[in-house]
């Protein structure tokens, strides 16, 4: 074997072989290994898009559903509620996840009706408490009423040892550090629900309308929940708001509900949803919830986020069965339990789940 042979033939062919093996290994890794027996004979592909708040819960639902129905592939693109609803209305995806119900003013209800050939169905499938996290030296527990919270985040209360905070926390040793409120710099359903809570429960202390974008142009901004948590952790005297499941070891404040102080919890969020009425003037199969931020129900934690699944009432024969099967799983006890384990969300209350199930059952073939 001389050098020319090696250089011209042997080496390149070995390299090509190695490359081919490496590339085929890449491809093989993408196949889902389904060794479990499937109990149903559903098959097909489902595409969804929307809320990124639902992402970890959606991962749990997809995994659970695909395990039971190995012939089905469910895809979900957490591109944001707005993008998801737009794709759904354009017919690009089969279902959408959204942190806020379809907006009649923005024409989303009509667009969905046009896409589906009938009123779209909308069911709440994800409830998550929002915790007010803080990082103040020497303070482990904090109690804040919505009015004080609104004043803090509006920049009206600037120091941790302010009289208003002291009045609500007589036992805490509050330092004189400056308060640094942290908000989300990206469009977020968490921001929308937090500002909605401050507006409705703040008793006039919060004058900005609820919005996905933080309305005040000053203060520390952080990107995504992970950015919010690291900003609060990394600063001194910082206070922010984030999904309870992502809080880690940061302390969360208790909020005033009625006359009592309630700690953030999944059960509390669930109770708050239960105590809230459905929105008026919506189509029959649309369960948009008008969250009652001023509820005084025992143990309720009204600072939470409700996310919805939007689907059509009718689909083509094969697709209708798969959509119905998936949505049934999502709102079922088992599905909600899987999501609670994986994403730390609160299971939707039984009364809501029952109504949602009835609506999902009405999905039929065209």
């Amino acid at each position, binding site marked *: 074997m001389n050098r020319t042979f090696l250089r011209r033939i042997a080496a390149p062919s070995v390299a090509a072989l190695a490359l081919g093996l490496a590339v085929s290994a890449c491809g093989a890794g993408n196949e889902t290994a389904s060794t479990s027996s499937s109990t149903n004979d559903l098959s097909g592909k489902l595409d969804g898009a929307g809320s990124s708040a639902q992402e970890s819960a959606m991962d749990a639902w997809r995994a659970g559903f695909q395990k039971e129905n190995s012939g089905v592939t469910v895809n979900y693109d957490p591109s*944001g509620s707005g993008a998801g609803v737009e794709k759904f209305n354009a017919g690009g995806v089969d279902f959408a996840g959204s942190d806020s119900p379809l907006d009649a003013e923005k024409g989303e209800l009509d667009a969905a009706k046009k896409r589906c050939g009938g009123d779209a169905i909308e069911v709440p499938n994800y409830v998550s408490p929002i915790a007010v996290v803080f990082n103040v030296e020497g303070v482990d527990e904090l109690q804040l009423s919505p009015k004080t919270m609104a004043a803090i985040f509006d920049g009206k209360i600037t120091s941790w040892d302010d009289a208003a905070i002291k009045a609500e926390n007589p036992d805490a040793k509050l330092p004189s550090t400056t308060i640094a409120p942290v908000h989300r710099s990206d469009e977020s359903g968490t921001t929308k629900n937090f500002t909605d809570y401050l507006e409705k429960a703040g008793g006039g202390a919060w004058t900005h309308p609820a919005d996905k*974008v933080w309305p005040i*142009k000053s*203060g*520390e901004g952080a*990107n995504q929940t992970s950015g919010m948590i*690291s*900003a609060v952790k990394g600063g001194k005297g*910082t206070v922010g708001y984030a999904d309870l499941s992502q809080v880690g070891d940061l302390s969360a404040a208790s909020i005033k509900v009625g006359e009592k102080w309630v700690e953030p919890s999944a059960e509390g969020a669930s109770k708050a949803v239960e105590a809230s009425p459905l929105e008026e003037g919506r189509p029959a199969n649309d369960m948009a919830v008008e969250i009652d931020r001023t509820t005084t129900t025992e143990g309720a934690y009204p600072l939470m986020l409700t996310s919805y699944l939007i689907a059509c009432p009718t689909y083509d024969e094969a697709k209708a069965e798969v959509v119905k099967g998936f949505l049934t799983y999502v709102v079922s006890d088992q599905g909600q339990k899987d999501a609670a384990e994986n994403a730390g969300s609160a299971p939707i209350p039984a009364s809501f789940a029952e109504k949602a199930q009835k609506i999902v059952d009405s999905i039929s073939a065209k």
Partner: protein
Amino acid sequence: MSIIEAKAGPPKRRLGDLVFANLTRAAGMVILLALAGVAIFLTIEGIPAFAAGPGDLSGAANFAAYVWPLVFGTLLAAVLALAIALPLAIGVALTVSHYAPRRLATLIGYMVDLLAAVPSVIYGLWGGLFLGPHLVPLYEWLAEHLSWIPFFAGPASTTGRTILTASIVLAIMVLPIITAISREIFAQTPRLNEEAALALGATRWEMIRLSVFPYARSGIVSAAMLGLGRALGETMAVAMVLSASGVITLNLISSTNPSTIAANIALTFADATGLQVNALIASGLVLFVITFVVNFAARWIVSRSEVQV
């Protein structure tokens, strides 16, 4: 033997020459086509945004009002970064080419090149999680003692994620580019000129000022422009370090900072729909034009004052 007269005609070209010439021409064309393609895409997708209203522009009245704070932030961060990095880079390049002993110089060269190998996301993480909090005492000192200067006015940020921190991170990212090019340029100075200056009794620094800098001026400007281009377009590092509020302010140490065009696109693109996407692409077009203009201006300035060597 009779003298053979050479036929007067075009020089004989071998096939290899032809192929090579055309390949290089094609390579040049590809670059121009790619640039043109990007410019055309940006223009076509960005035009609808010029007619967009407040609903799609995060509350700004029109596109100009939307993009102006971003342009301000981009230019501020880039200018600060260049102001920090350029003197440092020239100093390092001079050290490597003229001052340091051979072995130390090679080592320094390797270290600086290593800086260029670090991914920008890592710089972003380091800036946001390490540098920011460690700069807070400095910001507090500045706010306490120098708050009469508009740059250091406001209440100091408690997390340190300000535009000054972002500029420092950008400066570190831009340093290896400017240093590498400057180093090569300085090494190319004709030895004769240097030795002539030294022979006339110039000190080392005077020699550099007299014979290296005039020769290297054009090269330093191109190095600075490359660095500026990177600073203008740097996305992830700024997005992760900056706590952006989209306001125009000269206050470098508070929590309220202007955002940059690239960071704004990175942060808001995922949630953008419809005309918002067009607005983001149009802001990208504005950045493209700014980089072009800055480059042309720099080249023109250099060509005006070129030293004929």
